[in-house]
């Protein structure tokens, strides 16, 4: 590990910060504050320090240290915000970010090197390559459901690519946001990286400013608002949007294992996940067994009273609680669970059956620990249902029949796909993660994050010594030189090589 710059221990930092905590520390969003932060960031960018590999490495390593040294604080705030168990916080938030940061550290040199491309015979005297440059100052708007990971994983990419960043975590996961606002200035360069907070109306103001990229995770409606605002300044955007992720359970399937894997995915974080299966399309032949298996899994996971289980979360706020409760009350029949407590924002892990396509639970994104199961009579019916809807962020299928899996995969479209499990494809650093159609545009994770926050500039370096090669292209044009040029520059169908004479 690179030696950290000498600084007081984190504990002392916190004590100092708490003593001097004032309005300037909280950077509550206001347009003038943001304009100033943007100006500061542009100045920091212009200084060139983010261009250096050592700088980026030091920032990424500082981020890792921040997570390691403050693990307990993160566990605490996530528990306050979402009643998230320590196990989930460590594995699905902290480790994910750490892995991404270390992956970037391990590969940064390679990513920053120019990529030389195949050249033609004639341009072999030239250098042709693609070099990655930072875009500039990027805005990252993270969501509340996994507030550490959804803010810091894009931040890793933006930092690795050499940008300055304005990070806006969600005001809904307020304790986590406040912790990030407090910690990040203690670990990262305070000129280059800023954390702000604010509500939905503040977002409109923020989007008036010009950034070089906007990365947004959240709802479709706000995603549209972000892209519309970005259109004014032609700012590129990455949008990772929620929706309803379908999960098809086939008649040929190990129902017991499928139930475990689905239950794990659906009910972790009390169902508040962009990537969990949102509903099940279950083949009629296995539906009864699936429900039994789910009931038994839930008992095994959370005990007879999930409310008392330390492994089960709560809904983030009253608004979401009401939304999920109303969906449950208006849709199908409760087969498992259904208990609720408004004061605790607790909804038991719930399975709904006899659900119709027109039910609210099948029309709106659920975002809670409720799994509707709709019956289908064939895999084809499931495919047709899925294709009638908007392209989801994730699509899942449980089947031991390879043909069913293959059909499902080739006849549908989704951000990502997983057979016989779920969520995992969104956690692998080697796979791009993102949406398509209404579930978003662009992708990130691993090298993809670095690319998302970079401009890949094409470069051709020539010299002027070999003018004999290019003379054919100049006027006065002659038919005979044209023939020669066409012959020389035409790509042959038969050969893999190509020739470029310009």
């Amino acid at each position, binding site marked *: 590990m690179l030696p950290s710059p000498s600084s007081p221990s984190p504990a002392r930092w916190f004590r100092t910060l708490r003593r001097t905590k004032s309005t300037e520390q909280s950077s509550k969003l206001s347009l003038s504050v943001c304009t100033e932060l943007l100006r500061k960031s542009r100045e920091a960018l212009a200084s060139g320090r983010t*261009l250096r590999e050592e700088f980026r490495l030091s920032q990424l390593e500082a981020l890792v240290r921040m997570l390691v040294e403050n693990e307990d604080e993160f566990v605490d705030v996530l528990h306050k915000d979402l009643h998230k168990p320590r*196990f989930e916080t460590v594995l699905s938030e902290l*480790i994910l970010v*750490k*892995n991404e940061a*270390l992956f970037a550290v391990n590969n940064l040199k390679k990513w920053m090197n120019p990529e030389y*491309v195949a*050249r033609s015979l004639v341009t072999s005297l030239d250098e042709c390559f693609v070099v990655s440059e930072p*875009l500039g100052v990027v805005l990252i708007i993270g969501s509340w459901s996994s507030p550490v990971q959804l803010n810091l994983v894009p931040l890793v990419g933006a930092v690795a690519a050499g940008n300055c960043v304005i990070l806006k975590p969600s005001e809904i996961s307020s304790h986590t946001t406040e912790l990030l606002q407090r910690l990040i200035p203690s670990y990262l360069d305070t000129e280059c990286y800023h954390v702000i907070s604010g509500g939905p109306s503040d977002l409109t103001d923020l989007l008036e400013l010009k950034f070089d990229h906007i990365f947004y995770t959240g709802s*479709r409606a706000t995603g549209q608002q972000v*892209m*519309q605002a*970005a*259109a004014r300044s*032609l700012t590129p955007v990455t949008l990772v949007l929620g929706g309803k992720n379908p999960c098809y359970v086939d008649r040929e399937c190990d129902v017991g294992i499928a139930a*475990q894997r689905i239950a794990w995915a659906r009910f*972790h974080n009390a169902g508040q996940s962009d990537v969990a299966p949102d509903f099940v399309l279950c083949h009629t032949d296995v539906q009864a067994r699936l429900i039994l298996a789910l009931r038994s899994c839930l008992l095994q996971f959370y005990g007879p009273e999930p409310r008392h*289980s*330390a492994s089960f979360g709560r809904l983030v706020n009253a608004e979401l609680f009401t939304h999920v409760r109303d969906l449950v009350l208006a849709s199908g029949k409760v087969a498992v669970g259904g208990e609720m407590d408004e004061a605790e924002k607790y909804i038991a892990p719930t399975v709904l059956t006899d659900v119709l396509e027109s039910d609210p639970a099948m029309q709106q994104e659920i975002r809670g620990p409720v799994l509707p199961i709709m019956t289908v009579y064939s895999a084809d019916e499931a495919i047709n249902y899925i*294709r009638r809807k908007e392209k989801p962020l994730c699509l899942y299928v449980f089947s*031991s029949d390879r043909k069913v*899996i293959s059909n499902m995969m080739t006849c549908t479209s989704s951000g*990502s796909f*997983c*057979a*016989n*499990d779920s969520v995992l*494809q969104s956690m*692998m650093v*080697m*796979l*791009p*993660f993102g949406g*398509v*159609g209404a579930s978003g545009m662009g*992708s990130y994770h691993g090298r993809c994050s670095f690319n998302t926050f970079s*401009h*890949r500039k*094409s*470069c*051709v*370096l*020539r*010299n*002027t010594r070999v*003018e004999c090669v290019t003379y054919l*292209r*100049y*006027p*006065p*044009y002659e038919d005979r030189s*044209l023939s020669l*040029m*066409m012959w020389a520059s*035409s*790509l042959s*169908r038969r050969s*893999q090589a*190509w020739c470029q004479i*310009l």
Partner: protein
Amino acid sequence: MSDYGAIVQKLRDSFGTRKTRPAEFRISQLNSIVKLLRENEGAIVEALERDLRKPKFETMISEISMAINEANYAINHLASWMKPEHVEKSLVMKFDECFIRKEPLGVVLIIGAWNYPVQLVLVPLIGAIAAGNCAVVKPSELSDSTSSLLTELLPKYLDQSCFSVVCGGAKETTELLEQRFDHIFYTGGVSVARSVMRAASCHLTPVTLELGGKSPALVEGSCDVTATARRLVWARFFNAGQSCVAPDYVLCSPETRRLLLPALRDCITQLYGTEPRESRDFGRIINQRHFERIRDLLSNSQGRVEIGGETEEGERYIAPTVLVDVSESDPVMQEEIFGPVLPILTVESLEEAINFINRREKPLALYLYTGDSKVVTKVMECTSSGGFCSNDGLVHMTVITLPFGGVGSSGVGRYHGRFSFDTFSHQRSCVLRGFGLEWANQLRYPPYSEQKLERLLQATQERKWSCTLL
């Protein structure tokens, strides 16, 4: 339903039949594009002659040949592009299949531009076809001879159930943009690009915007002045200056300017003769509006015409022109010229030139003429642009293995070669597991415990300088 709605629906229905998926279909359509170009070479040359007085030579190499090469390159590589890309797996995922599928987006819209009306429609179309999409193509109404020709020819060569051509101007384009597409590819100017992106945002449609801007050409003291002049002249006055990547203005020291001007004059004469108006090798401005725009830039400029400056309205002719004593606030420096006029601004140092460039919007291309490789590195690293080329002009966009696109206000996204295929594809991450090894999953299930967490952490943490386990 409007006409456009019906067109898009028809394409969507075709896309739903999956006929564009097999490689054979895509290759057959790409072959048809090659056939279209080869069999109608004469007609295309004539159409471009009518629209832009484009010399046959320029049409052949910058329109027909470029499109044929892109089509053949796609045909040659399609199999490898379509193959799923398997990724490195961790030990824990050893028995799973983890790969990225390349899938078509659906129905895409391609809006072409008038300056290279064949290439700017067909090269994106080639990418869209290679990636398995259906497409609506809207050529520019300004290059109306070429657009009419494409409107007539494309349906004859391509599968009409999958590819449609729509004609029209601003009003028709606005109506077309109300439809929902799965990707919009636009080449043109900044203000229409904003409307395109705004319209796209209503449907969350991703966009590729190939725009322009003022591409600077730095001419540094150690360059080979003669070769530089020849290449600058070629790049600037090709297609009568109507290229999005043409050098738009020159930055050099007063001393370099003193040497450059006679060289430019000589080159212009060598390439276009003493009366460029009589040269068959020099084009014309696309229409009256642009002719007047450029002529007004010239007359309102506070600089001095050093070379050229003649105009002739009837022919929409503007002579290859070099302006000097131009300042940053000059009208000619406020917008992309897009015509055969090259202003030269003087700076005292390389740093001043770099600062000048960095004060402005990021350009589509940045050119540098120098004999010193350290200067190349410095300028390349200290500035940002869509593309960069030293000691030449335009050519970086013809290297098929390099992505072509802008950054900042010069554009969003990129294409050419494999990058066209990628632009029109969705890269879908897939993980295929079996039902085995469930014992390995037990660690992740509730009820949670510190022991389970410890064991999982051992298996899943990335370490610095070591292999990935998850």
